[in-house]
Protein backbone atom coordinates (compact mmCIF):
# COMPACT_ATOMS: atom_id res chain seq x y z
CA UNK A 1 0.00 0.00 0.00
CA UNK A 2 1.16 3.50 -0.65
CA UNK A 3 -0.30 6.87 -0.22
CA UNK A 4 -0.98 8.79 -3.38
CA UNK A 5 -0.35 12.53 -3.71
CA UNK A 6 1.98 12.49 -0.80
CA UNK A 7 4.20 15.49 -1.32
CA UNK A 8 6.49 16.63 1.42
CA UNK A 9 4.98 19.77 2.81
CA UNK A 10 8.15 21.76 2.28
CA UNK A 11 7.73 21.52 -1.51
CA UNK A 12 4.14 22.53 -1.28
CA UNK A 13 5.20 25.47 0.78
CA UNK A 14 7.84 26.44 -1.81
CA UNK A 15 5.26 26.22 -4.60
CA UNK A 16 3.00 28.49 -2.70
CA UNK A 17 5.83 30.92 -2.09
CA UNK A 18 6.69 30.96 -5.78
CA UNK A 19 3.09 31.66 -6.74
CA UNK A 20 2.95 34.46 -4.25
CA UNK A 21 6.14 35.98 -5.61
CA UNK A 22 4.89 35.76 -9.19
CA UNK A 23 1.68 37.44 -8.22
CA UNK A 24 3.60 40.16 -6.44
CA UNK A 25 5.68 40.93 -9.52
CA UNK A 26 2.66 40.80 -11.82
CA UNK A 27 0.98 43.39 -9.65
CA UNK A 28 4.01 45.64 -9.63
CA UNK A 29 4.81 45.41 -13.33
CA UNK A 30 1.60 44.49 -15.11
CA UNK A 31 2.98 45.48 -18.48
CA UNK A 32 6.04 43.30 -18.37
CA UNK A 33 6.69 39.67 -18.78
CA UNK A 34 4.29 38.38 -21.40
CA UNK A 35 6.15 36.80 -24.24
CA UNK A 36 4.36 37.02 -27.53
CA UNK A 37 3.30 33.54 -28.62
CA UNK A 38 3.64 34.56 -32.25
CA UNK A 39 4.13 37.48 -34.60
CA UNK A 40 3.11 40.21 -34.17
CA UNK A 41 3.31 41.04 -30.50
CA UNK A 42 0.09 42.66 -29.30
CA UNK A 43 -0.94 44.99 -26.53
CA UNK A 44 -4.51 44.91 -25.30
CA UNK A 45 -6.23 47.89 -23.69
CA UNK A 46 -9.65 47.35 -22.17
CA UNK A 47 -12.45 49.06 -20.34
CA UNK A 48 -16.11 48.19 -19.76
CA UNK A 49 -17.15 49.59 -23.13
CA UNK A 50 -14.68 47.88 -25.38
CA UNK A 51 -11.06 47.19 -26.14
CA UNK A 52 -8.18 48.38 -28.27
CA UNK A 53 -5.54 46.06 -29.63
CA UNK A 54 -2.30 47.48 -30.93
CA UNK A 55 0.45 45.69 -32.80
CA UNK A 56 3.71 46.80 -34.37
CA UNK A 57 3.90 45.55 -37.93
CA UNK A 58 6.46 47.79 -39.65
CA UNK A 59 6.88 47.33 -43.37
CA UNK A 60 3.55 45.62 -43.88
CA UNK A 61 1.33 47.44 -46.33
CA UNK A 62 -2.15 48.26 -44.99
CA UNK A 63 -3.72 46.29 -47.86
CA UNK A 64 -1.69 43.24 -46.88
CA UNK A 65 -3.16 43.09 -43.38
CA UNK A 66 -6.27 41.06 -42.77
CA UNK A 67 -8.24 41.47 -39.56
CA UNK A 68 -11.19 39.22 -38.84
CA UNK A 69 -13.37 38.62 -35.81
CA UNK A 70 -15.34 35.41 -35.43
CA UNK A 71 -17.19 35.00 -32.16
CA UNK A 72 -14.72 36.03 -29.51
CA UNK A 73 -11.63 35.27 -31.57
CA UNK A 74 -9.63 37.90 -33.37
CA UNK A 75 -7.39 36.75 -36.19
CA UNK A 76 -4.68 38.93 -37.60
CA UNK A 77 -2.88 37.81 -40.69
CA UNK A 78 -0.75 39.31 -43.39
CA UNK A 79 2.62 39.20 -44.97
CA UNK A 80 5.72 41.28 -45.07
CA UNK A 81 7.65 41.44 -48.28
CA UNK A 82 11.34 42.15 -48.63
CA UNK A 83 12.62 45.04 -50.72
CA UNK A 84 12.80 44.17 -54.35
CA UNK A 85 16.46 44.28 -55.05
CA UNK A 86 18.47 43.57 -58.12
CA UNK A 87 20.05 40.23 -58.69
CA UNK A 88 23.57 41.53 -58.44
CA UNK A 89 23.13 43.19 -55.09
CA UNK A 90 24.06 41.37 -51.95
CA UNK A 91 23.08 41.44 -48.32
CA UNK A 92 25.67 42.43 -45.76
CA UNK A 93 23.35 41.86 -42.88
CA UNK A 94 19.82 40.59 -42.50
CA UNK A 95 18.08 40.85 -39.16
CA UNK A 96 14.53 41.62 -40.18
CA UNK A 97 12.10 38.83 -40.82
CA UNK A 98 9.94 38.39 -43.89
CA UNK A 99 7.03 36.21 -44.77
CA UNK A 100 3.48 35.43 -43.79
CA UNK A 101 2.02 35.66 -40.34
CA UNK A 102 -1.23 34.63 -38.71
CA UNK A 103 -2.15 35.02 -35.13
CA UNK A 104 -5.41 34.50 -33.27
CA UNK A 105 -6.22 35.68 -29.81
CA UNK A 106 -9.24 35.20 -27.67
CA UNK A 107 -11.00 38.39 -26.71
CA UNK A 108 -12.13 38.86 -23.11
CA UNK A 109 -15.72 39.52 -24.24
CA UNK A 110 -17.91 39.53 -27.33
CA UNK A 111 -17.55 42.58 -29.54
CA UNK A 112 -19.83 44.36 -31.94
CA UNK A 113 -18.33 43.06 -35.16
CA UNK A 114 -19.99 45.76 -37.24
CA UNK A 115 -18.22 48.50 -35.34
CA UNK A 116 -14.69 47.11 -35.38
CA UNK A 117 -12.32 49.71 -36.73
CA UNK A 118 -8.72 49.24 -37.71
CA UNK A 119 -6.26 52.00 -38.46
CA UNK A 120 -2.65 51.80 -39.51
CA UNK A 121 -0.12 54.53 -38.98
CA UNK A 122 3.66 54.51 -39.02
CA UNK A 123 3.73 50.75 -38.94
CA UNK A 124 1.47 50.46 -35.91
CA UNK A 125 -1.88 48.75 -36.23
CA UNK A 126 -4.70 49.92 -33.99
CA UNK A 127 -7.89 47.89 -33.79
CA UNK A 128 -10.73 49.28 -31.71
CA UNK A 129 -13.64 47.04 -30.85
CA UNK A 130 -16.68 48.16 -28.91
CA UNK A 131 -18.17 45.59 -26.62
CA UNK A 132 -21.38 43.92 -27.83
CA UNK A 133 -24.47 45.47 -26.26
CA UNK A 134 -25.83 42.13 -25.11
CA UNK A 135 -22.53 41.34 -23.44
CA UNK A 136 -22.25 44.50 -21.38
CA UNK A 137 -22.59 44.08 -17.66
CA UNK A 138 -26.05 44.99 -16.51
CA UNK A 139 -26.78 46.68 -13.31
CA UNK A 140 -29.63 45.19 -11.45
CA UNK A 141 -31.45 47.49 -9.13
CA UNK A 142 -32.71 45.97 -5.98
CA UNK A 143 -36.26 46.90 -5.24
CA UNK A 144 -37.54 47.05 -1.77
CA UNK A 145 -40.63 45.01 -1.27
CA UNK A 146 -43.18 46.98 0.54
Amino acid at each position, binding site marked *: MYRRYRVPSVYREMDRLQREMNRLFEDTYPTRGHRAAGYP*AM*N*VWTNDEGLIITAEV*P*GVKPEDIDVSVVGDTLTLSGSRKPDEIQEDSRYHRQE*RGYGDFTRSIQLPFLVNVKKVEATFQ*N*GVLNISMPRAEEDKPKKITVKAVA
Partner: protein
Amino acid sequence: MADTTKSIQEMEKQEITAPEDTERTRDCQCFVPRADIYEVDDQIVVVTDVPGASEASIEITVEKNVLTINAYVDPVKHEGYALTWAEYEVGDYQRSFRLSEEIDRNKIEATIKDGVLHLYMPKAKEAQARKISVKAG
Protein backbone atom coordinates in the same frame (compact mmCIF):
# COMPACT_ATOMS: atom_id res chain seq x y z
CA MET B 1 16.65 36.47 -51.85
CA ALA B 2 14.45 35.79 -48.88
CA ASP B 3 11.84 33.10 -49.24
CA THR B 4 8.47 34.83 -49.12
CA THR B 5 6.49 31.75 -48.16
CA LYS B 6 8.15 31.26 -44.82
CA SER B 7 6.52 32.72 -41.77
CA ILE B 8 7.97 35.57 -39.82
CA GLN B 9 10.12 34.64 -36.89
CA GLU B 10 11.04 37.64 -34.90
CA MET B 11 12.60 38.08 -31.58
CA GLU B 12 11.41 40.45 -28.94
CA LYS B 13 12.51 44.03 -29.16
CA GLN B 14 15.96 44.40 -27.79
CA GLU B 15 16.37 47.06 -25.19
CA ILE B 16 19.49 49.18 -25.01
CA THR B 17 21.28 48.96 -21.76
CA ALA B 18 23.01 52.22 -21.04
CA PRO B 19 26.76 52.07 -20.70
CA GLU B 20 27.98 52.47 -17.19
CA ASP B 21 27.87 55.95 -15.67
CA THR B 22 25.42 57.28 -18.23
CA GLU B 23 21.73 57.72 -17.91
CA ARG B 24 19.07 58.49 -20.41
CA THR B 25 17.55 61.94 -20.18
CA ARG B 26 14.22 60.77 -21.54
CA ASP B 27 11.92 58.85 -19.28
CA CYS B 28 11.18 55.94 -21.56
CA GLN B 29 12.84 52.88 -22.87
CA CYS B 30 15.15 52.74 -25.82
CA PHE B 31 15.45 49.88 -28.27
CA VAL B 32 17.89 48.77 -30.91
CA PRO B 33 15.98 48.58 -34.18
CA ARG B 34 16.60 45.54 -36.34
CA ALA B 35 18.34 46.33 -39.60
CA ASP B 36 19.03 44.90 -43.02
CA ILE B 37 21.97 46.18 -44.99
CA TYR B 38 22.40 45.49 -48.65
CA GLU B 39 24.60 46.75 -51.37
CA VAL B 40 23.63 47.58 -54.89
CA ASP B 41 26.09 48.79 -57.51
CA ASP B 42 26.74 52.28 -56.36
CA GLN B 43 25.14 52.52 -52.96
CA ILE B 44 24.62 50.84 -49.64
CA VAL B 45 21.06 50.65 -48.34
CA VAL B 46 20.23 50.32 -44.65
CA VAL B 47 16.68 49.26 -43.78
CA THR B 48 15.53 49.54 -40.17
CA ASP B 49 12.24 48.89 -38.41
CA VAL B 50 11.14 51.86 -36.34
CA PRO B 51 7.41 51.32 -35.82
CA GLY B 52 5.67 54.34 -34.35
CA ALA B 53 8.21 56.85 -35.60
CA SER B 54 7.37 59.43 -38.26
CA GLU B 55 9.49 61.67 -40.43
CA ALA B 56 9.23 64.40 -37.81
CA SER B 57 10.47 62.26 -34.96
CA ILE B 58 13.60 60.85 -36.56
CA GLU B 59 17.04 62.37 -36.31
CA ILE B 60 19.93 61.11 -38.33
CA THR B 61 23.36 62.48 -37.69
CA VAL B 62 26.75 61.77 -39.14
CA GLU B 63 29.65 62.60 -36.93
CA LYS B 64 33.11 61.66 -38.06
CA ASN B 65 32.61 58.11 -39.24
CA VAL B 66 29.55 57.25 -37.23
CA LEU B 67 26.01 57.55 -38.49
CA THR B 68 23.45 57.56 -35.71
CA ILE B 69 19.73 57.03 -36.04
CA ASN B 70 17.59 58.39 -33.25
CA ALA B 71 13.86 57.88 -33.43
CA TYR B 72 11.68 59.28 -30.71
CA VAL B 73 8.41 57.52 -30.06
CA ASP B 74 6.14 58.65 -27.30
CA PRO B 75 4.17 55.77 -25.82
CA VAL B 76 0.48 56.17 -26.66
CA LYS B 77 -1.89 56.26 -23.75
CA HIS B 78 -5.42 55.31 -24.64
CA GLU B 79 -7.61 57.55 -22.52
CA GLY B 80 -10.11 55.67 -20.43
CA TYR B 81 -8.56 52.31 -21.17
CA ALA B 82 -6.29 50.19 -19.02
CA LEU B 83 -3.44 48.17 -20.47
CA THR B 84 -4.50 44.67 -19.51
CA TRP B 85 -2.18 42.58 -21.62
CA ALA B 86 1.19 43.64 -22.94
CA GLU B 87 3.61 41.79 -25.13
CA TYR B 88 5.68 44.68 -26.36
CA GLU B 89 6.80 47.98 -25.04
CA VAL B 90 6.97 51.30 -26.79
CA GLY B 91 9.99 53.54 -26.68
CA ASP B 92 12.71 55.28 -28.62
CA TYR B 93 15.09 53.66 -31.04
CA GLN B 94 18.77 54.26 -31.35
CA ARG B 95 21.40 52.63 -33.46
CA SER B 96 24.75 53.65 -34.85
CA PHE B 97 26.64 52.43 -37.85
CA ARG B 98 30.26 53.01 -38.71
CA LEU B 99 30.61 54.31 -42.23
CA SER B 100 33.39 53.17 -44.43
CA GLU B 101 35.51 55.71 -46.25
CA GLU B 102 33.82 55.03 -49.56
CA ILE B 103 30.46 56.53 -48.55
CA ASP B 104 29.78 60.04 -49.79
CA ARG B 105 28.58 61.67 -46.59
CA ASN B 106 26.90 64.57 -48.30
CA LYS B 107 24.65 62.45 -50.42
CA ILE B 108 23.00 60.24 -47.84
CA GLU B 109 19.25 60.19 -48.19
CA ALA B 110 16.56 58.78 -45.95
CA THR B 111 12.92 57.89 -46.43
CA ILE B 112 10.35 56.49 -44.06
CA LYS B 113 7.19 54.58 -44.84
CA ASP B 114 4.96 52.38 -42.71
CA GLY B 115 7.45 52.44 -39.86
CA VAL B 116 10.42 51.36 -41.96
CA LEU B 117 13.37 53.67 -42.44
CA HIS B 118 15.47 53.40 -45.57
CA LEU B 119 18.88 55.01 -45.70
CA TYR B 120 20.49 55.32 -49.09
CA MET B 121 24.22 55.85 -48.90
CA PRO B 122 25.87 56.35 -52.25
CA LYS B 123 29.51 55.51 -52.67
CA ALA B 124 31.77 58.39 -53.52
CA LYS B 125 32.81 58.65 -57.13
CA GLU B 126 36.43 58.11 -56.27
CA ALA B 127 35.60 54.92 -54.44
CA GLN B 128 33.80 53.35 -57.33
CA ALA B 129 35.61 50.78 -59.32
CA ARG B 130 38.22 52.23 -61.62
CA LYS B 131 40.49 50.65 -64.07
CA ILE B 132 44.11 51.48 -63.76
CA SER B 133 46.06 51.18 -66.89
CA VAL B 134 49.56 49.98 -66.62
CA LYS B 135 52.12 51.81 -68.59
CA ALA B 136 55.28 50.29 -69.76
CA GLY B 137 58.16 51.98 -68.02
